[in-house]
């Protein structure tokens, strides 16, 4: 899947095509993982804390990321530059999946995550037939992430005040959702 650098996003850059792929994470991705996971600029809006050691990263990849029900790394030329995941609900919540994503700082503003979200949306409802709702909860001051979801066709459902504690502060967050029955670009 190609992503074109848009002039409006890329601040006057020459147009390039970036082919992105999604694949399962491997232990050998650990150094690439540290590029985003050890960067405060990236982890600022994440629920998890900045990684401080390769050992910590290996532990996460082995015990959380690899067994995760649906987690992929976002790759350019097979090198991981970020990750995207869908966490399913269980029991009464099985119609619902929670979308999450993270991207290395140097690749921000190029439409990469938007494309990755579109790729996920086009397959996850088929892979999980009981899934009816894909949702994402984003801090109100995380403008980049809100634009990703808007561009990917998600609907803004509401502002949830003081919804969660992120990095020690209670944050206002916005709820977005995409239903299996919504029209979205593939």
């Amino acid at each position, binding site marked *: 899947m190609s992503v074109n650098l848009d002039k409006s996003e890329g601040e006057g850059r020459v147009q390039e095509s970036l082919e992105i792929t999604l694949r399962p994470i491997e232990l050998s991705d650990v150094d690439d993982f540290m590029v985003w996971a050890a960067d405060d600029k990236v982890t600022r809006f994440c629920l998890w804390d900045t990684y401080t050691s390769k050992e910590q990263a290996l532990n996460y990849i082995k015990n959380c990321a690899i067994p995760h029900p649906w987690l992929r790394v976002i790759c350019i030329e097979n090198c991981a530059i970020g990750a995207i995941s869908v966490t399913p*609900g269980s029991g*009464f919540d*099985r119609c619902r999946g929670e979308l999450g994503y993270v991207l290395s700082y140097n690749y921000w503003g190029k439409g990469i995550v938007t494309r990755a979200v579109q790729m996920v949306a086009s397959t996850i409802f088929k892979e999980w037939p009981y899934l009816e709702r894909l*949702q994402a909860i984003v801090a109100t001051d995380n403008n980049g992430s809100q634009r990703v979801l808007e561009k990917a066709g998600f*609907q803004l459902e*509401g502002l949830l005040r003081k919804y969660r504690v992120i990095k020690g502060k209670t944050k206002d967050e916005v709820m977005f959702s995409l*239903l299996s029955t919504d029209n979205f670009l593939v």
Partner: protein
Amino acid sequence: MDPSRITLRKFRPTDADDLFSWAGDDQVTRYLRWKTLESKQEALTFIEEVCMPHPWRRSICIDDCSVGFISVFSGSGEDRCRADIGYAVAVEFWGQGIASKAVEMAIPQVFQDFPELVRLQAYVDVENKASHRVLEKAGFSKEGLLRKYFYLKGRIKDLVVYSILSKDESI
């Protein structure tokens, strides 16, 4: 109704008959996860095994007789600033502002009992307009409509989310 007749307290085994009269009614349990109770024995078991050990559940009482309930479930970790409230009242007491009064009474108690709580929220079925009014009268703000959010009694539901913040509370 004279509001001083409405009180909140913990459930007691002696509430079993009263509990059965409203929790044995499909109209009351329609929007709850509760299974409609089928006997006084079931009601007693429910009180002893669920209501009394619950972290925060109160009987809504009129003249100290149980006519309904309010429950609060709090989150942990990144969700520790947040709790969910649920409630129901016997049909014969609908439309008299009793649930609103009970929820209003519960709010300051809840913020006191959960010191890390900043946000008290409720998810209400989009069809359950009477419950929307209960929350609006009690000072909750409507924040949005969550489409196909979860299953309740075999049906997928659109829910409205309401919240009140500890700072919304006027002392």
